[in-house]
């Protein structure tokens, strides 16, 4: 596993994105990797794996990114992606209250089951849909009020307080405008301890992983059954 990765494993960081469906995980990655945005992005099926370099003054970090699918039916596969991760981006949509609840669940699961030193960033996405002056759209506030549509449902305060309690990095972003996106990744890169960069985790590091809930799906998937059928070669 490890040997098939980048030639400079000491400077690569495994990062996983988690969060409710449609909060904009893939869009954040697309912004970070390709500096692009797609208005009607289709849901991720399974997971996508991407890499992107991030230049810090003292070193270069190569992110190996797992962009997971937020849909419930893929939830049981998540441990496979976060189990070796050094960093996690837990994303919610700040116009959608349920997505913060889901994000909190992911944070709790990571704290229980991921590597102990994992760096977690909580990210509230779709900032462009709010009227915050920060994203440069506050001018129309007031007069047209509802019209200009502040769709924010989760206050910065609320999320920030939670992030501080849990010791998470915290950002509000817009994958659409690009606001704060590279900042998230830079902050993560800076937060990864030097020591952790040197420890390469082999396949052996995959400690006993408890798969949540959907045990049946995982069993069906198991190499056992299909292998019997398939790989008698």
């Amino acid at each position: 596993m490890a040997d098939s990765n980048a030639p400079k494993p000491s400077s690569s960081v495994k990062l996983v994105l988690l969060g409710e469906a449609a909060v904009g995980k893939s869009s954040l990655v697309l912004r970070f990797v390709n500096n692009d945005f797609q208005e009607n992005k289709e849901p991720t099926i399974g997971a996508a794996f991407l890499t992107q370099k991030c230049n810090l003054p003292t070193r270069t970090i190569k992110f190996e990114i797992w962009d997971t699918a937020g849909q419930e039916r893929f939830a049981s596969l998540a441990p496979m992606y976060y189990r070796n991760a050094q960093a996690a981006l837990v994303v919610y949509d700040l116009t959608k209250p349920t997505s913060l609840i889901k994000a909190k669940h992911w944070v709790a699961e990571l704290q229980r089951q991921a590597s102990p030193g994992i760096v977690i960033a909580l990210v509230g996405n779709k900032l462009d849909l709010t009227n915050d002056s920060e994203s440069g759209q506050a001018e129309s506030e007031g007069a047209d009020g509802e019209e200009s549509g502040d769709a924010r449902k989760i206050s910065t305060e609320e999320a920030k307080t939670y992030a501080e309690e849990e010791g998470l990095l915290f950002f509000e972003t817009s994958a659409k405008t690009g606001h704060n996106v590279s900042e998230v990744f830079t902050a993560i890169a800076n937060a990864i301890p030097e020591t952790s960069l040197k420890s390469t985790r082999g396949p052996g590091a995959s400690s006993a992983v408890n798969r949540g809930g959907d045990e049946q799906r995982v069993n069906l998937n198991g190499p056992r059954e299909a292998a019997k059928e398939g790989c008698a070669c």
Partner: protein
Amino acid sequence: MSAENVGSSGDAAALGGERPPPLPPRPSQIQSKSSPSTIVPERPNLSSKPTTAISSMNIQTLSFPDGSRGTFSTAGGENNNSQGTEQTPGAGAASMGFNSISNDIDESMSIMSLAPTLRPPGDLESLLVGDMSKKSPAWMLLHSQSAAVQPFETTRAEEGAILTDFAREFDDIPEPSETWSDDARLKLWKSKLKHFMILSSAGKPIYSRYGDLEMINSSMGVVQTIISFYQGAKNPLLGFYAANTRFVIVTQGPLYLVAISKLGESDYQLRAQLDALYMQILSTLTLPTLTNIFANRPSTDLRKPLQGTESLLSSLADSFTRGSPSALLGALECLRLRKSHRHAINNAFLKTKTDKLLYGLIVAGGRLVSVIRPRRHSLHPSDLQLIFNMLFESGGVKAGGGENWIPLCLPAFNNRGYLYMYVSFLDVDPESERDMSAAGEEIAIILISPDKESFFDLQHMRDDVVTELKKRGHLDIIKTAAKQGRPKMNEIAPGTHVSHFLFKSRANVQFCMPSLHPTFSNLISHRRLMSLYHNLHSTIHAKHTHVKVLHCVGEDTTSLAWITPIFEFYCVAGPNASRTVMTQGANKIMQWAKREEERLFIIGGGVF
């Protein structure tokens, strides 16, 4: 339940009675098919005897089945404008009566050209016998001059009418608003030529191609009531007509799948489309999960567990509506490559194989380049259809960039569990991403494993394969071939008037066809072509027929179908192509296909 008497041929007869008697036919009408619709009532005799209005298709078919003569008589009329319905006896095939308007020239022509085919021809050449002798030199001259008329060039306005809005067929129903009242939205919904719906046997809506489920809830309710009425009577309903719309129903365990089509496919074809949708559902859930969900709670709303599958169902549905040769023939298309190149690519692929691998595929521009597989397992076309749909038709995976790791069930392989699919699009780099998806020439490496932990093994294998392919220049060969696209008709059979064909190698479950450009590259002409193929396919496959060769003269096309245990062949030419022209063209194509067989098809593939 059937529409035997709904067709507009009846109307034409009624109207015709009040009109002056018909003028004698003039040959010029063949070319000037722009004749206004008023011509219709001027030919009352036609509607009373539609049989004669049609092409060889009927006559041919009539000569074989016993007892089903009457039923077949209208089939060819439908074929004239590619809007036919199923020709199985008793299926109410007369529903498309408005199509059976043809002019007398066509009749005599088709009857003449048919005669020799009445004996079962063992070889296409035998079709030629007697053909020439039946036509006057003047007739031949006329034909030789007009044989270059392209298919559908002469389609009359009212015959093409059903497809006039086809470009908007795939648009979604707008949200309700001031400009879009509920009535207007419902009207738009009803105007769609094709609907697919899936509901649970408890009546819960699961999927509809158009309209939010709220809007169509009542329609679904009606459908469910009708189906369960028959279900209760232990006599399941398979299909019915409402006017010129065919309803076909497939019951799969706890699911009802319904196709509603005005496009004239046969029941068999519609059923195959519904089966594909069902396969997609299994691919998401697996059979045991689907069964359990409903065993535990029959009233479950399946939309939640299927979340995200909707776009895959819709891209499948739309490919059927646009018309897919691959779906029609149940076969795959390969990238044309020299035998030695394909061999070398297979070997490079095999050489890099990891033991985690079950299936490996290289695909370029949606066409198969190479397959490697265990000796004991071949890949089922219906499974490949799902993979191709996900990767090449529905944009999600491709647009994401990066590599993908996708759990999916391949139901024809094993409907009980998941496999894991590694996908890497080679050419999707940041700059050219948009262009690539537009050009449809991207190369994908698809590696499938039963082991969900094997992503990095397969990623490693991909890197090795790409290195191997680059080393010998094979990657460029693949790119060039993909860019070149399908061969042009005049490269395949120079000088032929045949405009397009489908050739399926039955043993290899693969097909090939020439470029659709320029005659069939737009949405509507493509659909016409596909409707014609659907008609030929259903006629020649109809139960109780022993037809092996079908020559069919329609108003705006001439076509030919030929089936042997080895291959299926369908071809199309303009309306004035003589049978000689058709058979010569067909023979040339056949020789080409024989010569090119190992380039066109993957024979065996890489086996380990």
